[in-house]
């Protein structure tokens, strides 16, 4: 079993992700009790893990960026780029699911009082600029350096921005909304953990999948040059 999964990492990850996602949906709808908030609380089980996974992706991207700058590992730049790409995809999902949740709870498609959501908006803008930067510089070591530096700025921005948004709420909007409800019951917490594991697995699988695709692309290009 372990040899098979080592030889077919992508397939193994896909199986794991499917299993975890399936388990989490079952738990969310059949096991976790309906919260006092109502049925809409079920969105929380996907929305928060997606947000946390997005942070994890940005952090992983920054780590790879740091390794590129410090150790000059050859694959680090591509891995950093793909990790940040996953982070943006999951960030977009966070914004959409958060917006839907806001509509259910507070009857507005966007609430500036939800600090986590506003932070995601800022980060989304920041990392979209990362892609604009990457596409406007020709491939090469310099593009890798610039991307890595910007990715590190991004990860530093996360806590600073969070602090800023928190401070801003005292002169912009007096009340603060929280994304997650009050303390969770054990069964809710267990469901949340499974959902979180599922999202992390999904992100890691998509990350490895995209990396494999990009490496295949590069190999083919090299093969083409060798043949013609």
């Amino acid at each position, binding site marked *: 079993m372990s040899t098979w999964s080592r030889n077919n990492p992508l397939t193994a990850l896909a199986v794991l992700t499917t299993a975890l996602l399936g388990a989490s949906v079952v738990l969310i709808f059949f096991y976790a009790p309906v919260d006092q908030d109502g049925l809409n609380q079920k969105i929380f089980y996907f929305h928060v893990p997606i947000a946390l996974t997005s942070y994890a992706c940005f952090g992983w991207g920054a780590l790879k960026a740091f390794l590129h*700058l410090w150790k000059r590992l050859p694959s680090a730049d591509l891995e950093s780029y793909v990790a940040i790409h996953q982070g943006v995809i999951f960030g977009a999902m966070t914004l959409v699911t958060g917006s839907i949740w806001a509509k259910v709870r507070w009857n507005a498609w966007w609430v500036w009082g939800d600090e986590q959501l506003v932070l995601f908006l800022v980060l989304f*803008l920041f990392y979209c600029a990362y892609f604009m*930067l990457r596409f406007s510089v020709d491939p090469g070591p310099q593009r890798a350096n*610039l991307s*890595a530096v910007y990715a590190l*700025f991004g990860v530093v921005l996360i806590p*600073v921005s969070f*602090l800023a948004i928190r*401070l801003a709420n005292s002169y912009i909007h007096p009340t603060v909304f929280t994304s997650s409800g009050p303390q969770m019951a054990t069964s809710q917490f267990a469901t949340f953990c499974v959902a979180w594991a599922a999202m992390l697995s999904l992100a890691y699988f998509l990350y490895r999948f995209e990396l494999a695709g990009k490496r295949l692309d590069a190999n083919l290009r090299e093969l083409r040059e060798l043949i013609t």
Partner: protein
Amino acid sequence: MRRYAADVAVLVRKDLTLELRARDTLPAMLLFVLSALVVFHFALPAHSSDLAAKGLLWVAIVFTAIVGLTRAFVAEREQRLIDGLLLAPCDRSAIWLAKSLAVLAFLGAAEVVALPAYAAFFSGIGWSTVAAVALADLGIVAVGTVLAAIAAVSRARELILPLLFLPLAIPVVVGGVGASVVVSPGRYLGFLCLYDAVFAIISWASFEYVVTE
């Protein structure tokens, strides 16, 4: 250490001398900030509070900074001066520090005109606003110089600098506006100090990687 300071001083003097001769960046920044303030007068409907105007002051400052930063590395890029700078036996971060100080000088000069103009057009400004502007300037130029160097390499140049800069400018705006409008600005000024410290360190450490291959 003294060598470092001497290198920075030489580079700052170079940038200021070039600006004194060419006289293109600073007048543009001055005109931009005054025009922006006039536009904001027309952008605020009647019965808008003073607080809204204070917020717009910070918008003007951020965008004036962008105007100045866009010009920051133009000479280095167009006349390939950056190669000469890199061949010089100085620490790369000295280039960052010198450029930041030069941009700080331009931004400060623009604000010396902008703040009294704001006080005349809108409402008076207190010591907390001035302190916030001073602290915010440090963070803006620290981060902005690195981003300007990054933008100088890209094909998109002037287009990409605002995109890279604005998300990073949001905490500065929060700190600045907060300090300008609340009764006890201590928290916001403290936050601006934190922003300056954190981003100055990371900018100083990472500039080398931006300009070298």
